[in-house]
């Protein structure tokens, strides 16, 4: 939140600074009165009206009214969800994020996971919900958090001012691996975004090596496709992240490991040590060759 990438976040940071300075000033003042009261020699009785009505009633009412006026005025300037915005849907799932775009050409749904890419300088509305328990979508650089409640769609309006990669976390306790449910928002130039979306709409890239072909075969044999979709090979299951273009994402495992071939192998073999309790079983019994084949296959899904 200290490095805002949207006007909403920048406004909030300004409000936070005002609040912080005000709080410190009042704190120092009250502590000063306390010290003065302690060292004062006994004198005349205290003027109850001055202390109580002045300090206890008038002073806070004046300050709080000013604060209310200021914060309401600035707060109304925060980004609001708008009907003309680009809509991206995000669902919280224990313990990852399903992200859904619409293909502008065909209107079909494009499913991805754990990374939200959006165009700089354009209004975006995130439609937030949950597939299971209550989660909360929070990318501090973009603005405040919004809870993801099953049965409801809450909306968050975002307009990113500059390109960059922004980390977010789940901010509502959602079970065993709440601590390791991170995501990344990648803001890119609008034309780059359009190209990216077109690529995402396409089915999976064909395997480019014999190892990767092996990996694709193993993907089905080992029943990875019972949970994971790879469009063009297995299109259906939704209870795990969609892997069609997994290698185009910056991280795997909900922000856990930077995407690279070795990371895939590690994740598949050892997930229950990295993220104990995650819904995917560990495949530690697999031999090294099979693991590397699967890793090659997944790393090719750009």
């Amino acid at each position, binding site marked *: 939140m*200290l490095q805002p990438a949207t006007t*909403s976040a920048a406004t*909030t940071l300004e*409000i*936070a600074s005002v*609040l912080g300075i005000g*709080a410190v000033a009042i*704190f120092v003042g*009250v*502590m000063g*009165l*306390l010290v003065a*009261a*302690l060292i*004062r020699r*006994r004198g005349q*009785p*205290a*003027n*109850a009206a001055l*202390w*109580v009505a002045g*300090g*206890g*009633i008038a002073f*806070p*009412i004046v300050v*709080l009214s000013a*604060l*209310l006026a200021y*914060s*309401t005025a600035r*707060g109304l300037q*925060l980004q609001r969800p708008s009907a003309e915005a680009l809509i991206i849907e995000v669902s919280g799932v224990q313990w990852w994020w399903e992200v859904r775009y619409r293909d502008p050409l065909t209107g079909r749904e494009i499913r991805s996971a754990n990374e939200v890419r959006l165009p700089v300088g354009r209004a975006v509305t995130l439609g937030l919900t949950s597939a*299971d*328990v*209550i989660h*909360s979508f*929070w990318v501090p650089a973009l*603005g*405040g*958090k*919004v*809870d993801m*409640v*099953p*049965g*409801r769609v*809450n909306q968050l309006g975002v307009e990113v001012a500059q390109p960059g990669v922004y*980390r977010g976390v789940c*901010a*509502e*306790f*959602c*079970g*065993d*691996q709440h*601590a390791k449910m991170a995501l990344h928002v990648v803001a890119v130039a609008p034309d780059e975004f359009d190209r990216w979306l077109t690529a995402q709409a396409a089915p999976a890239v064909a395997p480019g090596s014999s190892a990767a072909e092996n990996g694709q075969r193993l993907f089905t044999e080992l029943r990875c496709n019972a949970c994971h979709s790879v469009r063009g090979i297995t299109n259906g299951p939704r209870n795990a992240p969609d892997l069609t273009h997994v290698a185009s994402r910056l991280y795997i495992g909900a922000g856990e490991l930077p995407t690279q071939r070795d990371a895939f192998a590690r994740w598949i073999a050892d997930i229950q040590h990295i993220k*104990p*309790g995650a819904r995917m079983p560990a495949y530690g019994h697999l031999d090294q060759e099979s693991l590397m084949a699967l890793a090659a296959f997944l790393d090719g899904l750009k």
Partner: protein
Amino acid sequence: MTQHASPDLQNSLPSSLPRPAGELAELERAWKPASGWRFFSRVNNTQIGVLYIATALIFFVLAGVLALIMRTQLAVPDNTLVSPQLYNQLFTMHGTVMMFLFAIPVVEAIAVYMLPNMLGARDMPFPRLGAYAYWAYAFGGTAFFMTIFFGVAPDGGWFMYPPLTSHYSAGLGADWYLLGIGFIEISAIAGAIELIIGVLFTRAPGMALGKMPIFAWAMLITALMIVFAFPAVIAGTTLLELERSLDWPFFIAERGGDPILWQHLFWFFGHPEVYIIFLPAAGLVTMMITTLARTPLVGYRAIVLALLATGFFGFAVWAHHMLTAGLGMLEMMLISAASFAVSVPAAIQIFSWLATLWQGRLRITGAALFLLGFFFIFVLGGLTGVMVAVLPFNWQVHDTYFIVAHLHYVLIGGMVFPVFAALYHWTPLLNGHVLSERLARWIFGLMFLGFNVAFFPMHISGLLGMPRRVYTYSAGLGLDGLNLVSTIGAFMLAAGVALFVFDALRTWFRAETENSNPWQASTLEWAGNEEYGVRSIPEIDSRDPLWTRASMVKEIEAGQHWLPGTTSGRRETLMTSPRAARPRHLLILTGDSWWPITAAAGTAGFFLLLTVKMVLPAFVCGVIAMVAIVVWLWETDPTPRTATVNAADNRPRLRVGGVGVQTHSWWAMVILVIVDATICASFAFAHVHVSLMSDVCPPSGSRLPSLWFDLVSIAGWIVAALAMEAARRWEIGRDSTLSRVGLCAVIAAALLSSLLAFAFNAWGHLDAGLEPKANAWSATIMTLVSFQGLHVIVVALMAAYLVGRLISGRLRPNARATLDNTVLFWQYTAVQGVLTIAAIQMLPRLIG
């Protein structure tokens, strides 16, 4: 402000000297606590209060140890000391034990121990109820804490949000929480009843409301808050347990429920809860400041108004815990403004305290150090609270470590530090000794510095993006150093507490010595003895009786005030009028008894065995509890042996026991009915909430009962209420069999009418095909119907009990509390029946 002595006190003291021989010995014999193994049958507030405080402090230390384990896990990033599953149990138990087994009990316990003495009363108005409340808490709390050792502790957070805690939490953890805190709920409500009745009706003569110690005001308002806040969590936890065990879908969106419904119910309790924790501490602070600054309080009336305002407006701001859940913008702005407003009463108190310190000169004792620590920490926490009330800022810092910092600043600053100050200040009441002033400086230093080192960095880690309730965090996010510092601070704080425990144990177990009022305090708790309070109940005429009347303590000890002995050979105190505290009648209090602890064990067994689904043993325990309660009740409402007694030589004779609305038990029943009505209102709120959320009401597949059933039902309840009115107006005391049979017939008629009313209502719902599992609308209706059914069972039992009293000749014109209280509850049941039936029928028609 000059304080005039009352004309009575000017002319003559209530009792003349010399006192009769043997009078003091008689008094001491009546109040002598049971010894040896009979220790467990003690009921006097002094003995129960000490146990209560000690138990609460033990839970404080235990929950603190859980926090130390958590902080050790968080000291370094990516730590593997503690598994995620265990960590989630640790933070859930830390929060739950601190809030339910320490924070509320410790302030109630201090009130149980000290408030009667401050008021000049000798005990709480219902001693056995207080004992029952304590033992239920002790048994239930201990069993609940043990769950962590068996790995079955709840792990959904102390706030237990569904759906995580309903269909996504297999295992018993959540059930332990839901049924486990049932005890605390009972304990708290029993305590609230005692406090309200005690503060309003058992004050020393002349202690008008405007002369009460501020702690009495604080506890009165706190108790009223408990009455209106706890029912919401009772209702919420009931609904969650029904969803878990019977699959009634209150919080399941796909079947018409709403997870946000839980949040409304929980936080409607949860926010007043923190004021329930803070107001008593604020009351204690006021009393200590005036004593240690050696000056009367500046702004007494302002503080009373501030306490009232906090208590009232504290109920308006619950939704500021839900500002990211998707509420409407207008609602959120109102909540934000209300949250600002509720800080004004806090400011009034702070400036009154500052003015009092300014006017006087604070003597630096161990207690004073903790009061200064309170000022620093609580004001800082209050200011971050105002920050968090600003919507955009809230949306960033909600559910981060910034809030962890805020809540610990206000709770540890606002309650723990005042409680430690109170332990230092009032230890002489326990056995005449004082805690070590030298060690106090070390303990305070460790605790104050340790606290700030632990919790201040959390403001920063929250702003840097660290969310709450995480078992670990990644390296390289800037959080490493801050967390390590916090952990070091936590251990410093723990060291301070450990040093305090050492000093406390060696001081509190020393042999009794004379209490010399070492701080020269002004209020009545310093004028009593360690066992039952004052030798004679003083007539007072000022807020600081021991300051304005130099001879007060001597007079009290010499037996020159009210009740210097015992008129009946039993334990006694005075019932006085609520506003001016004019003596009304003599209240005979019960002595030590085995029934409260037995009933508590039975209640504990019932809830705990039900949690592990051992249904038959659970019901056996329930029966034991009920038998114990009935036997205990049988001894109440006794026929006075004489109509009046001489409670003070130079004052008019005092009636023994009250009649009708003057009895303390009637008012207790009034409060119980208010609690009951608030529970019903909470269930009704759930029904309205899910009704408004569905597209059509009733939802497709469900329908309302046919109107005829409900009209017959309403008629039945009206007849029942009228029959009980006739019973209330019956002329008791005519010793004719015909009269007794007539009254029995009236009661039987009321019971029959009630049973028919309920039966028709239930039949109507069955006829309409009510299936609670189908959707939330049906589930909430079934809940309301079941709640009414529970009331029908209770009135049936009450009817049987009442007839028993009548037949055995225990119902008399001057011993008719049983009848009056039963009529009150029964008529409330009838009203509840009519209103819930009407509401269920009318709501879909109003929504349209």
